[in-house]
């Protein structure tokens, strides 16, 4: 005599599971905390309707150590993947750290940097740099010289990063985002031209390898 295999799940169970799942549709699974109303004026981020605005937003994020500003301007997952390519000095100093550097690593880096009790001054392009017009869905800026100083609130020490980079921006969905940051080399210290400053690759390596 043969017995039919017992049914593991009744269709009603599927229905229940679906109801549980649909309950989630109301957005009631997780609840964020109630934020405190702002005490200061807002950081003026620009709409991401051009590559220049995206670059300006990254600078504002640095100056205000405000992670949302950085995360919001780095290309989200699902589109063109974000790539960071270090200069040779940073790559030598942090072997292996930059392998597969993507948005997740970039976001982790910026959060670790901002959460480490620092103040930052930043100028992400020189005054005489003229960026090319946006055209189509991708634009590349060559020869961008940035200057970033990170001061520790704990011991007051300041480290300066000044480098030359090739930056690529792309359109994803409705907006422009930074999709590639390639550091070429460290630039000289304007106050001491014989001193070559590290690029932000060294900063990324320091916080990315923690």
């Amino acid at each position, binding site marked *: 005599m043969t017995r039919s295999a017992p049914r593991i799940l009744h269709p009603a*169970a599927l229905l229940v599971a679906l109801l549980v799942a649909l309950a989630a549709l109301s957005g009631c699974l997780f609840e964020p905390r109630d934020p405190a*109303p702002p005490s200061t004026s807002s950081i003026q981020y620009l709409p991401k309707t051009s590559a220049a605005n995206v670059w300006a937003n990254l600078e504002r994020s640095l100056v205000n150590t405000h*992670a949302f500003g950085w995360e919001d301007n780095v290309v989200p997952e699902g589109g063109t993947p974000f790539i960071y390519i270090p200069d040779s000095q940073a790559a030598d100093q942090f072997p292996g750290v930059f392998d597969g550097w993507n948005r997740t690593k970039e976001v982790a880096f910026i959060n670790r940097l901002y959460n*480490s009790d620092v103040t930052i001054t930043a100028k992400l392009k020189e005054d005489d740099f003229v960026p090319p*017009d946006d055209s189509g869905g991708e634009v590349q800026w060559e020869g961008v010289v940035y200057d970033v100083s990170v001061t520790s609130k704990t011991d007051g*020490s300041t*480290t300066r990063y000044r480098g030359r980079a090739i930056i690529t921006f792309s359109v994803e969905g409705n907006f422009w985002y930074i999709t590639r940051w390639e550091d070429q080399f460290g630039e000289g210290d304007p106050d001491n*031209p014989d001193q070559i400053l*590290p690029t932000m690759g060294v900063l990324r390596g320091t916080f990315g390898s923690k």
Partner: protein
Amino acid sequence: MQVKAFLDRTTAPFLALAVASALVFVLAAAAPAPAMAQDFEDAEDDTTGAAADSLSNAEMLRLAALEAEAVSGDPLGPFWQGMTNKPKAGVRSNVRQYSYYGENVTNVNFREGSFNNTSSYSWEEYRKQDKTLEKRTDQFSYNAGRLFPFVTSITGNWDWSEDLTTNTAGFTNLSKRDSKNINLSASKTKFQTGAFTNTLKADARVDDQKSVNQGQRNDFSEGSLSGGLQSGTALSEGVTVAGRYFAKSTSGDRSLGNSTSPSSASADSAGFGVYFDRSFGTGRVAVTRSNFDKKYLDFKKNSNGLIDTVGLDDQDKVVEELETRDAVSVEFEHTLQLRRMKLITKASRSTDNQDYRVSGVGLKEREQDQFDVTWGFGVGRDSLALSYKFLWKWDDQRIKGATLNRGRQYTKSRNYDLTWMRPLIGGTRMTFKYHEGLTQDIAEKVHNQNDKDRLQTDVSLRLDRDWQQKFKTSMIFSYKQGQDLSIRESRSSNNNVKDSYEISPGFLWTLAPWLTLDQSYQVFIQYTDYVYSDLESVNRDDNYNKRGNLTTKVTIKPTRRLDLVVRNDYNRRFNATRVVTDAAGNSYYHKDQIQTISKIDFGMTFRVAPGVTLESATYQTEDVKDTFGARDRTTTTRSGEVWVGTKVNKRWGKTRPLELSATVKKYNAYGPAVTATSADYWEADVWMKWEF
């Protein structure tokens, strides 16, 4: 227990090699006779990541592969079984750089064992900066086959590179590295000792590096010894216990800048696991503890780990660092499969303390808890997968010289996912996905102002249908909501909620075997509402963005040798800012910008002869941007690119084949973002290889 450092520093590298050689032969003599090994696969998973130097899963597989390779030769053949050489030379070019390269791969087979050597050379010149890079490498490996009861191998590497980069101020930096290492390894996998199945491994290694960058020397010469044993036994049918121990000791000298000092490191790790495969499912419980201490020269660093040598004398810039680390991890994994239902549960906890004697970083403490559960089942034509993932981690720091900890920095993340698949009527397939995730950053003791929550909700429905195989359609509905909320009052002014909608219908129509038409239309709409935009102190305006994208692609294959592709992307974007909301709740927006981009691509592939292909592609883009404000403005830009090229793949001869591969393309581009180096360049990869 840790292996004690015993190498004299001045002769460490050579002594290490000699001692290691002796150790290998002692181990070989003491090894029991090989026996049938029981299934040890579960024990191979006894890795938690807590110990970088442990006998990892990948390492186990590598050892097993070496062992398999060792017994694959012909035991009765002549001592010398042949040698092959594969010299290869080529040139490569692209928009970034030119490079010339060559290599030779030599393979020598003996009756027992084999020898492989790869020598390579490359020279690169960068087009977008004043930079050249020269590299020379050599890698060899010798496998002793069955000469010894242990799988014995010697590997060596030599890496030499010279990077000359000139910055815009005309300063040229030399980054030069000359690195050599040799490694003697002996291992035996899955041998039986009574009821235990064991894997044993021992290594001896010598490293020597000389490098200079920005005038700073960074040299080291070190020798290391390491060894590990993994043993397991079956307690009962389907239940196995396994333990492992690994230790490593390193000793030598390091030079950094103008300082030279002895260096040393010792590390060990121990793990224990229970593995089961019974009626209640398969899984494991594993515990691993690992630690190391390292003495080395380092630049003086501040509390953030950043090099802090400004204003210091040369002798104060470099310090003798002692770094110690202790880590423990516990993992549980269980898989239950009942017919069409599968339940996978994973839980883990890991803790990690890292301490520096000199660096301002001081003591870092970390802990991470993770719990994942995935439930998948099918009923009738439906299949459903539910998963919940929980991650809670924190790190704390006691900065050097501080009496109290900084406070924990928490990251808490929870994600829920649902996927439901169901075939509908007439060959239509439905895929429904739901995701909700909350990530929170919390700074204990408010040591920074960056507390924040991000709540992400994604819902999508996809319908696919095949219409008599010649016509396929798809439709995607998607909704996403992202809430970015800073918790502290000093950062909350930009808090916002973004609602995004996407509708994407599309079809692929095979009109004839040689002609297909693929068309899709996408509409993206996003509303951004700033939570506090109604406050006077917050000068943020809610906004609205819409983008429509029509993609049309025609593929034509008029002959078996010719492929043509024509594609048009028509893209229209619309950005607006909310100016007012009336009493009924209707919002009114000011049009800020309309942008229209049209791009036409044409691609051709023609197979001239076997192994020879002609390729060509071109595109043109027109970008019209209307900006509305105090003064309306219209900007039109045009850009384009054309390239023509050929691919050749040829092979001559069978016993001593000569192979040629060549891909050569010529690019010309124009447009506002096209620079001199990207306006006119060659992309090529041409190489020739001979085997004898």
